[in-house]
């Protein structure tokens, strides 16, 4: 199987703080990691490769420092890594981002053959929109499944275990397809010392807008219909009161007296 995994390098949100004056993320000194869900996507991709043969390519759009995230991926089973980096890509919203990623995939397919699966994380833990994967599928005009926790390949069928509120569905999908992955039962593996050393020495292919022959009008700020008007930290509201008396009628009475005491009704 020929698998592409899209990786976003994100700040470790467990360590991030918000500057109360500017309402922006304080990124200084915050370690960067591979987006958590992308690690799960990669693990599923590598497991498929190990079972059926083939190759796992990882790619990321971002600044030069995103190479570290790609090297991390190479140390846990990815075979080849591409970084898409260009000033023209800066300021992309999700539409532009997904357009760039899709254009890259098409470009690479000309050289390396079609991808059977394109795996993304369910969402990035910083942007949190969950839009890039589905939008990519639309740009490429191929099928998509979201919230996957497992993927099985049987002949030319791909079966995807999709999480939903009640439990899960097994969905059959035709390749090629974009699948966005959520936390699954398969914990991402640890690298080995040897794979780390090898990944450190491995080459990361760096491509820019020219090398993938993309229309830069559709990239970056120019290609982004989303405009951010204002960002702010929501005010922390006081916690609510929980009323849980012995019986339902006692609870109702307590609730009523609270409401009438406050002269709400």
């Amino acid at each position, binding site marked *: 199987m020929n698998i592409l995994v899209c990786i976003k390098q994100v700040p470790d949100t467990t360590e991030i703080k918000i500057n109360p004056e500017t309402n922006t993320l304080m990124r200084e000194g915050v370690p960067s990691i591979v987006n958590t869900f992308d690690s799960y996507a990669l693990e599923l991709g590598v497991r498929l490769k190990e079972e059926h043969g083939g190759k796992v390519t990882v790619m990321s759009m971002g600044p030069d420092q995103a190479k570290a995230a790609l090297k991390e991926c190479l*140390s846990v089973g990815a075979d080849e890594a591409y970084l898409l980096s260009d000033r023209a890509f800066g300021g992309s919203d999700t539409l532009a981002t997904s357009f760039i990623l899709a254009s890259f995939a098409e470009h690479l397919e000309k050289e390396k053959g079609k991808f059977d699966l394109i795996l993304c994380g369910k969402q990035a833990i910083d942007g949190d929109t969950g839009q890039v994967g589905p939008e990519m599928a639309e740009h490429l005009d191929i099928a998509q499944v979201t919230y996957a926790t497992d993927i099985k390949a049987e002949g030319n069928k791909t079966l995807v275990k999709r999480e939903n509120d009640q439990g899960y569905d097994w969905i059959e999908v035709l390749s090629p397809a974009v699948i966005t992955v959520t936390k699954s039962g398969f914990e991402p593996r*640890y690298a080995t*010392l040897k794979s780390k*050393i090898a990944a450190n020495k491995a080459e990361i292919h760096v491509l820019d807008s020219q090398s993938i022959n993309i229309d830069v009008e559709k990239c970056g700020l120019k290609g982004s219909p989303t405009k951010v008007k204002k960002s702010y930290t929501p005010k922390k509201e006081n916690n609510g009161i929980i009323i849980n008396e012995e019986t339902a009628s006692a609870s109702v009475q307590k609730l009523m007296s609270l409401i009438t005491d406050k002269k709400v009704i």
Partner: protein
Amino acid sequence: MEITNEMRDLGDLIEKYFKNEVDPVVAEYDAKGELPEKIYNDLIEMGLNLLAVPTEFDGLMVDHKTETYIAEILGRHDCGIASAIGVNTSACATMNFFGKDEQKKDFFGILTSGKLAGFCLTEPNAGSDSASVKTTAVLDGDEYVLNGTKCFITNGGIAGVYIVFASTDLSKGTKGLSAFYVESDREGLIIGKHEDKMGIRLSNTTQVIFEDCRIPKDHLIGEEGKGFKYAMKTLGTSRNFVGGMAVGLAQRAIDECVEYAKSRVQFGKPIAYKQGIQFMLADMQTQTAAARELTYHAADLIDKNGDYEMYVSMSKLFASDVAMKVTTDGVQIFGGYGYMKEYPMEKLMRDAKILQIYEGTNQIQRVVISNIMLSK
């Protein structure tokens, strides 16, 4: 000492693994006195037994600075596991220094197949005085026949192969010692008593007994009669691993103390407000920082093939004395809680003690250092 990105990359991987998988269960296995199979398998999978295996034999062959850095990280989390890895690295050093290519292929092949190595020098009546080794190796046709008892052997019950020092001529004392490698499945190699230890209880320490154990002649490493020299040369580099572990252990104790001192309230304020505590912390950190610099300097000298022997002994001596002092003070800062197994300090103190004893006691390090000083 600069920690390079390459070093940090490996270190972060080990740190992450130990934080997630070892720290939560270490107290349980310390009480049981065993290394859980899962952790053993993970260590092997990660390749920690291949640190000193040459790349041409499918190993990692990291430099001594990196090895020291890894020892420090292991020491932070568990000195028992660190000891298993450290001794494995010592055994590799003997083979690297003195083995022939054919022997290396054979010996390192056992490690790449997923095993650890052991290092058998000490005997019940030959500790600091290695010249008193009584295990014999007698040539009989194409084979050496080994007889004798080694004790306190780290990885004794779990290693796949051992470096063994035995006498090929008892009349010659140190000049009669020779070095061999012996696979653990050789007939006549018996795993003896499993030691119940004060600390480093996740490491496996046993007797290794040879009863007419036959090994091929070509398992002799280097030349007959040079074993003592080989052992000293090996320990002369490998004991820097102990320096690294000691620094890691000491730093861990300090970090625990800083946290504790900030949260333990007595007389209405955290004890960290007391100058008596502050000065202890300052001394602990100063000594540990000095030990760290000395240890990395020794590692750097080994890497540059400089005059490292005295520095390696000083690193092992000083860092382990610091680890003992710092953990003893650490227990003091924790007060009664420091004495309880529920808190991390008492294990750190128990673990620290061995670092002053094995790989040559700290008295023996002083002998080595002063001998070098006075022979100049």
